[in-house]
């Protein structure tokens, strides 16, 4: 809101105002006097002389009064208390939280990690750089890509960046295909990114099995298509036939991009790059930390070494110093905004470095055996839950013949939204009402079961759902 401005600073030098004591600001009045004397200024106000008088604020900002620490904690406690985050929930839907081992956060809280800047001076950033090199290696192993960058913002924007990269690699092709079974927020982000550019997005639908139709894909493919975007597992929890879809895309000369929003699935599922994905993107939020209302996320992005110079985002590489000691350094930086400026592969600067570190520590604690075990526990729990819920009268598993990882779709006898609303009111969030994403699936709910769920939780879900269906029917 516009407000009156005037020459307040000049008429109201700081020495006459009440100066607050703030614990983050070291300067005493004596300090201030000494510094001013060295500068040759009478008052701090003099230092703002370059700002036109009419722009100077006449009054203090109308902000709530400053809180002391105890008051601050009480206030935030109160806000946090207004969230019912501990409710029993079977939500996944692109934000797939898991139990995060305590050692991860303990390490993240080291000031050397979280108060560090981007590692532009490698000699004093080897901690961050080596950890990111380990991250790139681990994600390369998980995705099958030869090269994985040091992170993008999240899975959705990573997919959008992948489409842009496909547009650069396939310079004369202007169309991008996105499967309808890709998460709607991923698709929406892609559409937004592409919206102002000379690129067009087209949707490819899914069939009755909940997976992308190869026939429809082949009808859409031609020599103007740069890439196809798929999600694995897809937004319906279903597993796509990646090899068949990859083959169709490649035959038409298009790249295949696979988005993985649940990287734990890679403990059980084949690395997408080994099934034909040219670019793999993903959301590492579940590996990196708590779900925290959806952010920060961890954008995963990988491709082949050959295409690495077209990649967005930072890359950490191995290097040697003059004594032959091995170290790590940000490399191939000429792709980036601070060097190429308008011609950069992306405008990204700050990414999700601390989240990448968290994912690295978590994956280190899991190891290959732990990742597989975690994946199997999730899958096993989900299958048991699915069996239990399918037993309920009137409930069936949609896409029953299609394999899934740990997220599946249940079809209810009637509209799902009202049922889920009543269950939520009773303290049970059964899943995502799919009608929000796919109007034709308004009688369906997307249920995600992971390692944190116990048998009793599923029993509660089954009995609650059973009761609601009986009431409605």
């Amino acid at each position, binding site marked *: *809101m516009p407000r009156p401005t005037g020459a307040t600073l000049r008429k109201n030098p700081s020495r006459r105002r009440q100066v607050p004591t703030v614990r*983050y600001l070291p300067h005493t009045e004596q300090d201030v006097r000494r*510094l001013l004397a060295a500068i040759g200024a009478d008052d701090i106000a003099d230092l703002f002389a*370059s700002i*036109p008088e009419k*722009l*100077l*604020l006449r009054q*203090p900002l109308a902000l709530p009064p*400053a809180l002391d620490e105890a008051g*601050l904690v009480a206030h*935030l406690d109160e*806000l*946090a208390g207004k*969230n019912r985050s*501990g409710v029993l*929930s079977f939500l996944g839907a692109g934000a797939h*939280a898991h139990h995060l081992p305590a050692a991860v956060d303990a390490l993240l809280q*080291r*000031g*050397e*990690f979280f108060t*560090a800047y981007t*590692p532009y001076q490698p*000699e004093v950033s080897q*901690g*961050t750089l080596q950890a*990111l*090199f380990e991250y790139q290696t681990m994600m390369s192993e998980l995705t099958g890509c030869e090269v994985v960058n040091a*992170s993008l913002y999240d*899975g959705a*924007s990573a997919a959008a960046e992948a489409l842009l990269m496909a547009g650069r690699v396939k310079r004369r092709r202007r169309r991008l295909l996105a499967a309808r079974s890709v998460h709607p*927020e991923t698709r929406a*982000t892609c559409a*937004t990114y592409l*919206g102002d550019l000379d690129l067009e997005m087209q949707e490819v639908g899914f069939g009755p099995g909940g997976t992308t139709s190869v026939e429809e894909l082949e009808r859409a493919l031609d020599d103007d298509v740069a890439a196809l975007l798929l999600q694995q597992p897809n937004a319906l929890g279903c597993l796509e036939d990646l090899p068949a879809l990859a083959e169709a895309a490649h035959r038409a000369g298009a790249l295949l991009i696979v988005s993985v929003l649940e990287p734990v699935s890679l*403990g059980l599922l*084949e690395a997408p790059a080994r099934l034909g994905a040219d670019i793999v993107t993903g959301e590492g939020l579940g590996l990196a930390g708590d779900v925290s209302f*959806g952010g*920060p996320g961890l954008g995963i992005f990988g491709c082949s070494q050959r295409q690495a110079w077209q990649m967005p985002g930072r890359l950490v590489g191995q*290097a*040697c110093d*003059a004594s032959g000691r091995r*170290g790590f*350094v940000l*490399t191939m930086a000429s792709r980036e905004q601070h060097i190429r*400026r308008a011609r950069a592969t992306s405008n990204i600067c*700050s*990414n999700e470095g*601390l989240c990448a570190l968290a994912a690295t520590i978590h994956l280190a*604690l899991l*190891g290959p055996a732990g*990742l597989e075990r*975690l994946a*199997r*526990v999730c899958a096993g729990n989900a299958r*048991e839950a699915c069996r239990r819920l399918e037993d309920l009268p009137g409930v069936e598993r949609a896409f029953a013949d299609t394999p899934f*990882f740990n997220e599946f779709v249940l079809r209810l006898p009637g509209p799902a939204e009202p049922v889920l609303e009543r269950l939520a009111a009773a303290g049970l969030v059964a899943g995502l009402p799919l009608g929000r994403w796919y109007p034709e699936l308004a009688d369906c709910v997307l249920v995600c079961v992971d*390692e944190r769920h116990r048998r009793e939780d*599923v029993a509660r879900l089954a009995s609650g759902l059973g009761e609601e269906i009986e009431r409605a029917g």
Partner: protein
Amino acid sequence: MSPGWPPGWERKLSEPVDSDAGARGLVRPEPLLFERSVPGRRGYSLPEGFGDTAAAGDDIPRGLRRGEPPRLPEVDEPAVVRHFTRLSTWNHGIDLGFYPLGSCTMKYNPRVNERLARLPGFTRLHPYLPEEFCQGALELMYQLERLLCEITGLARFTLQPAAGAHGELTGVKMIRACLRRRGDARRKVLIPDTAHGTNPASSKLAGYDVVEITSGPDGILTPQAVAQVLDEQTAAIMITNPNTLGLFETHIAEIAEMVHRAGGLVYCDGANLNSLLGVARPGDMGIDVLQVNLHKTFSTPHGGGGPGSGPVGVVAELEPFLPVPVVEKSGERFRLDDDRPESIGRMKAFYGNFAVMVRAYAYLREMGAAGLRRATELAVLNANYLRVRLRRVLEVAYPGPCLHEVVFGEKTLQELDITTLDLAKRLLDYGFHPPTIYFPLVVHGALMVEPTETESPETLDEFAETIERIIDEARRDPELVRTAPQRTPIGRLDEVAAARKPVLRHDFSGGE
């Protein structure tokens, strides 16, 4: 690493490390975690699962199932903790020392905010829980937006962008949508030569061509220079205020008016907002769109490269184009509104970097209006103090007072036959992170120094003394400076080889 260490320490640290295995007291080498892997070691604690865990997933067709397990390291928890703890000891951080990076605002990251961001009521909140279960989070976002509006003088904010560059792209896209709505689509964005590289990169991503404006001899834009490139194809001007030289764009109001009259809009990069809190507001300067950086001005941690958060503020005319969803208040209830037909759409999934917002919100609630104003005053005071302290040995790029940051050129260094890079690397030996170097491009061999308000006068004096000491070293023994750093765990790396033959992941086959 301040002066006053035990005698003899200096000599020890300047000795080269002869092998990776050799520790030097508390300075320990550490291989890649993969190199510590021993088959069979386990570091996890997982439940049994209540389903058939062992057979789970066997129903998935073989062709889609994992063939080879990923080669993650096999290590126990103590080894993981030791590994990453050792790595951390090789990092500089704000917690360890001065970090005068220009335009980065490396101020202290308050500890209480770390605790608050970790409250389970925030961390465990799934973004798709029913709105009535998320009222605390939505209220926090709503209040944060109100605070940012008051601080900047803009009408509304989106909290969705995950970083400053993300915010820039969001802002330029909203400008484009606005002009399209006016029926007056245009092709060009004007950007000064002092701009951060993200500015032209973001404009390009929004489908615009970039036209550079030359800053005047005193480092700021003149209306004449703008007039030379302003025409009916100008969609916007993208300015930073204060600019990357630490100077207030004194002609901002007039320039904004010129652009508006020509039918364009004004984007302001708010990275340098730390110089204006409580003193002046971009919204009063004719700015239409502004991104702020929570991880700069608002004290949230840099994390070694993120996560940040880049909320974008707009004037009322641009409100319809904000990304969805937007947080609205109806009575006492907060809700997410995505029924906005003219929105540019989504810049990412969910609602933005919420955990970062919690920290920024807590910071603003603790500082209050007087605290923020004081922070700005002291930031500007500190920068000017370094300006006068250092001008004896470094070439100040532009005479006269600066705001929160000051830029030096390389003239005095050239005379000593050392480079800006050499000076920066020798600063590392003394425990200081160097300032931003070689940016902005308008100053050859630039050193951009932003001390921030959380640094004490003693630290500033130590820094200035160290610079003077290094200049002195360059006179007596320039080779010492040119081969710096000597005291860090590793010396200057061969970045050319690293870029020509990139090794971007560990090679398990043993070839290094």
